[in-house]
């Protein structure tokens, strides 16, 4: 504990620039000599926390040689809201709305990861219908998360809003579905221990089927619009390469890991929920660059659609919540559990320690955004500022989850 405190106090924790580092003193320009022997200047630029392309309050401390990045430190913590500590004072049920605000565009998957951990801790089992509903809402979440990501990525690339607006049009349709289901568009607060909060409203399944059947048209249109674009290829291929080895040893998960060619999808490896019943494939990239990360998202959307079609057709009738599962005043027996799901951004894990009281003794979240962000510098070195922006865009971060 004391070493951790020391790390926090001297700033080397969580990517803060080391106070002892000579680069700390780069107030403006400093003279160096490059390999050609020409004397020239380095420039430190603090990109963020208020910058159009940092996707929230995130800062990149960049040292550039011309436009080439020599050093980059991701600095985060600007959106820290004490989530884990708040959980220690809250009831198990009361934590669910807080999880909505982790990755604030994918509240459904956050709910599921937390609920799954508590179910594992207290031995509940979700009902059959609830499992299907969970898969449906989570895959819908994955659809619009990936659509938004490619939209934002192209926005960062300078495509001035058009791809983003196309993506947002599709996102609206899914958010409308969520609104009619849960009463809220983004902060859904939908899942409960042993099931879900409320049943599907009348006609919801038909509307969802319509959204799902229209969705391939959007992907085709989007790809026709931009995937073959020469500028996109030139900007993204070979940029921000993440090697397979580094990706594995840095603990990168999700589409980013799969773009580097590692076959690791928790839906396949853990088969949590009822994912073993569905027939879908995991797309894998070979180059691990920005273009692969873009394409993996597009291909994953197509695979998610397959899952959705199967789930929407197979969903059984029945109770949506196990009446034996206690939600209010839940006091799980003392113990420790780690549970994880494949959130749209990667492995989202909840580590809960219970001491038998009404609130967790300790709750820790493994946010995929944070872990995936730690290797930002390795991907950006030797690239330009413009590349750093799209590399960050291709990581898919949400600052609510990074800083918690």
């Amino acid at each position, binding site marked *: 504990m004391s070493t951790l405190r020391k790390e926090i106090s001297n700033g080397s924790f969580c990517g803060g620039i080391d106070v002892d580092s000579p680069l700390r003193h780069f107030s403006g320009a400093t003279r160096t000599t490059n390999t050609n022997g020409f004397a020239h200047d380095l*420039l430190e*630029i603090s990109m963020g926390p208020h*910058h*159009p*392309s940092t996707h929230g309050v995130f800062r990149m401390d960049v040292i550039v040689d011309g*436009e080439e990045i020599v050093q980059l430190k991701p600095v985060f913590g600007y959106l820290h809201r004490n989530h884990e500590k708040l959980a220690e004072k809250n009831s198990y049920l009361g934590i669910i709305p807080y999880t909505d605000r982790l990755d604030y565009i994918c509240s459904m998957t956050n709910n599921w990861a937390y609920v799954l951990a508590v179910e594992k801790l207290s031995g509940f089992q979700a009902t059959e219908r609830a499992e299907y509903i969970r898969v449906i809402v989570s895959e819908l979440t994955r659809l619009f998360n990936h659509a938004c990501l490619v939209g934002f990525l*192209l*926005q*960062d*690339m*300078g*495509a*001035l*809003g*058009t791809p983003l*607006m*196309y993506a947002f*049009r599709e996102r609206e349709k899914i958010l409308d579905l969520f609104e009619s289901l849960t009463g809220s568009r983004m902060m859904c607060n939908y899942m409960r221990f042993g099931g879900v909060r409320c049943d599907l409203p009348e006609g919801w399944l038909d509307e969802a089927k319509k959204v799902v059947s229209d969705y391939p048209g959007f992907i085709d249109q989007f790809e026709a*619009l*931009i995937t073959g*674009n020469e*500028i*996109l*290829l*030139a*900007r993204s*291929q070979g940029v921000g390469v993440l090697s397979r080895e580094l990706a594995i040893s840095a603990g990168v998960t999700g589409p980013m890991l799969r773009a580097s*060619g590692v*076959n690791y*999808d928790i839906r*396949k490896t853990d088969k949590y929920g009822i994912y073993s019943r569905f027939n879908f*494939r*995991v*797309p*894998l*990239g*070979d*180059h691990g660059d920005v*273009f*692969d990360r873009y*394409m*993996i998202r597009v*291909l994953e959307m197509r695979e998610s659609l397959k899952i959705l079609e199967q789930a929407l057709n197979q969903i059984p009738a029945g109770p949506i919540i196990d009446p034996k599962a206690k939600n209010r005043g839940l006091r799980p027996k003392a113990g420790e559990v780690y549970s994880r799901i494949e959130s749209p951004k990667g492995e989202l894990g909840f580590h809960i320690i219970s001491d038998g009281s009404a609130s967790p003794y300790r709750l820790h979240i493994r946010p995929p955004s944070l872990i995936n962000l730690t290797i930002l510098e390795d991907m950006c070195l030797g690239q*330009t*500022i*413009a*590349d750093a*922006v799209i590399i960050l865009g291709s990581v898919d971060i949400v600052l609510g989850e990074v800083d918690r």
Partner: protein
Amino acid sequence: MNSLDQIFVTLKQWLLSYVPTDFQPVGSALLSIVAIIAVFGTAFALTTILERKGLGRIQNRPGPNRVGPCGFLQPMADAVKMLTKEDIVPYAADKVLHYLAPIVLTVPIWLAFAVLPFGRNMSAIELDASIVFFFAVGSASELAVFMAGWSSHNKYSLIGAMRGIAQMISYEVPLVLSTVPVLMLSGTLNLNEIVNAQSGFSFGVGQWNVFTPWGAAGFLLFMIAATAESNRAPFDLPEGESEIIAGFLTEYSGFKYALFFLGEYLGLFAVTGLAVTLFLGGWNAPLAFLNVVPSWLWFFAKFGALIAVFIWARGTVPRLRFDQLLNFAWKFIVPLTLVNIAVAGIWYFSSDHLAYAVRWLICAGIFLGFYELLGRFLSLKRAPRTYRYAE
């Protein structure tokens, strides 16, 4: 019909007849200045609203539609907002340069309009080397960008200015070189005479430069260079808002920002007007029987069509990276403009020996051959990617 065509010329002469003879040159200049500022000031306001509406349509949204009928008074609201905003000058800025930069950008651009022929007998001044004058005043914008970037004392501004200068100087070369074939074939540097050279009709279709192989190639090259020269997407790197906030404009606010905005659009209008003059026949009608329509209407119709192309491009393509931008200029566009000059020479000297169609095919073939060769040579040999699937 002729009276409608010459209505502005007649109007000016009528107004000048009330001015004493000694002051007529001054009066003539002032009247031209007022006309140009009024017309292109209005065009600026109209373009901003049409651009925002057009981009809105491209992006599945209505665009501004709250102020006035269909939102067409939005430019007025924007102007009021800009004028009433606080003018912030950074503490560390070089205040004189920071103040001067928007003026240095905007003033010379107005001069460029002086030589453009907007209609029959409708250019403000008659210069023998008007195209040289046009490029001379047009290149002052580099200085303004550098002044703005340097004086702001902001790192983003500095990078933006650095990008801006490299980009504008690089694209100045193909911009000028792509006009050379037109000058060679018309044998004059005078824009009015260049338009007159395109005024004939063959089979009822205007003899515009763009209908010849060197003209078509020159027009495309000119338009690409003009896009880069006026910092518009996909070449909007100096202001690339997702990378360097607003580039050299980062520290500007209020009216100075509005002046920069105005200056950039005027630069765009000037090069668009030049493109119309050099390649699209200026104020000439496209078909012989359409000659009854006033000449100035033709100029502004072509002008508006080209502006629409710029807006369309802005709504559809991502931005290039800096090194790719410069490679594109120096390795691709500049060699092609040089080839185009040679093609124009071949076109000129083969006129006595070959039939028109044969001449056309040979010249187009030479240019396209070089285009293909250069493209192959510079191609990055990108293999189409396939993706594996794990079950």
